[in-house]
């Protein structure tokens, strides 16, 4: 971390994580460079891309961006490296797929100016698709939250890295992004909330456009479900205050229950997971739901995996409020997939 004397007041540092997303990355960098706000610096951290990124970035942007190449450490590792060299009073983290709205930084700095006690400003993000076709996702909308903890845990808040702007001092307080996680941004937001950060809402138009790529959603659904579980498990390790602890336990139990009933898990694992879900939060998974789920898993006729029964299953899950809207939003909105780690 840079010494305090090197911090330049008013400066916004945009840290972009690049990993094999040329030419999409071009628009990301352009959207950062051509903000209505000045002064601004752009730092591109390349997680060892094997595509045209290294040549193209230096060729197209030269010294208007700072380009750093490093071994692949996921988006969390890229954000850590980028923040390590950033000199801004405010920091924006962006994935190399996504696009900042042209006045995003300006709007959010205005919110910081109006409320100097705010540490993080968040706003809406809208999704767009790379390939033309039918749009079938859910865009979360953000609003002013009286209790950011409850919002982050149990409701559909839609706060993500792209839609937020951070004060430097708060990143120093929260510490580095966790590079061992698959869903790093939720963890970082939870830790920021735990560290006592004050979140302020920026109303109005979208702050950015998040790219939906073919394969992105469906292929990694189970990995994300698992990744979310790990984030909640980690949160249970440090969040001691009630009612937040129970809320997190309930969310974790829901995650586990949903994963037990998902299609990509063996029967044995499913039984173990549903048991774990009940142990995590007996209030969320009452005895009759637990028994019914076990029965459904054990039954030889595979009711849980039959494709044409899916609408009925979804309906039942929705009725039991086990289908958490947040998990759905995050499943759709997954940033770049980190490569294999050593």
């Amino acid at each position, binding site marked *: 971390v840079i010494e305090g004397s090197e911090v330049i007041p008013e400066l916004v540092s945009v840290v972009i994580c690049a990993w094999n997303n040329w*030419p*999409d990355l*071009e*628009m990301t960098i*352009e*959207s950062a*460079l*051509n*903000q*209505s706000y000045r002064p601004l610096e752009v730092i591109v951290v390349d997680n060892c891309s094997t595509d045209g990124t290294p040549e193209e970035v230096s060729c197209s942007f030269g010294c208007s961006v700072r380009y750093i190449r490093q071994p692949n450490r996921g988006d969390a590792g890229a954000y850590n490296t980028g923040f390590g060299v950033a000199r801004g009073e405010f920091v924006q983290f962006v994935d190399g797929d996504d*696009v900042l*709205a*042209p*006045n995003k930084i*300006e709007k959010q700095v205005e919110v910081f100016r109006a409320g100097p006690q705010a540490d993080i400003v968040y706003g*809406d993000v*809208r*999704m*767009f*698709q790379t*390939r*033309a*076709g*039918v*749009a*079938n*996702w*859910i*865009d*979360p*909308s953000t609003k002013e939250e009286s209790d950011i903890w409850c919002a982050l845990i149990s409701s559909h808040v*839609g706060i993500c890295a792209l839609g937020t702007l951070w004060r430097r001092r708060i990143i120093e307080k929260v510490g580095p992004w966790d590079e061992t996680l698959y869903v790093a941004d939720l963890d970082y937001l939870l830790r920021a909330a735990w560290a006592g950060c004050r979140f302020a809402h920026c109303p*109005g*138009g*979208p702050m950015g*456009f998040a790219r939906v790529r073919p394969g992105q959603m469906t292929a990694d659904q189970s990995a994300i479900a698992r990744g979310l579980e790990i984030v909640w498990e980690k949160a249970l390790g440090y969040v001691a205050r009630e009612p937040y602890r129970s809320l997190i336990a309930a969310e974790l139990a829901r995650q586990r229950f949903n994963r037990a009933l998902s299609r990509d898990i063996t029967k044995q694992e499913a039984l173990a997971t549903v048991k774990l879900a009940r142990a995590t939060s007996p209030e969320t998974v009452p005895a009759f739901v637990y028994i019914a789920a076990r029965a459904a898993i054990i039954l030889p006729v595979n009711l849980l995996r039959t494709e044409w029964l899916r609408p009925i299953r979804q309906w039942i899950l929705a009725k039991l409020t086990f289908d958490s809207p947040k998990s759905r939003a995050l499943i759709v909105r997954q940033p770049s997939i980190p490569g294999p780690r050593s």
Partner: protein
Amino acid sequence: VTAADDMIPGLVSVVICAYNNWPDVEMAIASALHQSYRSLEVIVVDNSSTDATPEEVPRRFGTRLRYIRQPNRECAGAYNSGFSIAHGEFIQFMDGDDVLAPNKIEKQLTIFRANPGLDIVYGDVRTFQETGGAANWTDLAMVPEDDMLAKLTAPQGIWLNTLGVLFHRTALNKVGAWDECLYVEDADYFLRAAWSGCRFGYCSGSPMGFRRLRPGQKMENSSAMERGIEAVWSKAIGYITREPYRSSLAAKIADWRFHRAVFTDHLVTREALVDLALARATSPVAISALRYSAAYVMVMLPGGRYLAQSQWLGPLRRIVARLF
């Protein structure tokens, strides 16, 4: 129309139509002012907005853009006024709801530079929604076209989006003014451009802009849009005299009327019959006697149009259609 000596080579004029869309128009203006291509002027034409637009636009942007207020003449009127004072060699028209991609102008100018004969460059546009919720639309994919007029007049044709297009001044001089009497002015403008011999180039890659979907938007009024599109095509049949474009367009209009008569519930029985007869008269080739009489029976029969429209009878209808 601006005299040619007023034109500044290399300059791009962005003409934004504003009508009661503050604060959305703020993002539209920011996306135009902060392009990666620098030689650029922004003209905001305000169709007499009754919201904060007249105070906020001059206050926030001052001399960085030219702001004109005029009686409401719809988008077409705003584009005409904007173009009449534009100095650009290239012109971008956009609605105050929408957002240009940060490198849109630069990307499309690269295509113009590589192909000096082009009049119009078009590219992809992506949709986003104003309020959160389930996404429910289809984004269209553009491809390079050899014969744009054929594509625009074909029954299963394509739609160009003004937001994704960059005009060379020559195109606007060839085509003339935007038609202020039409509800769907852009469809008309692209048809006329293709008819007047404009050469179209395609800009591939990332989206050129983001189009806003808002509750209560013009697009939402489907019956007015249907009427508006029909008016555009009826106008086109008046000037598109060359074959095969003319027959193709006639078939397109006939299909459109036929579809509205049988497959929508916007019309009462008598209107539907008139539309059906009109469809047959427009293109006896597209609407064969057999198709016409089958549709006539459907419309006349009580509940016949319900049979034609209900979702769950879809597979059955497809079987019947195949038999014919």
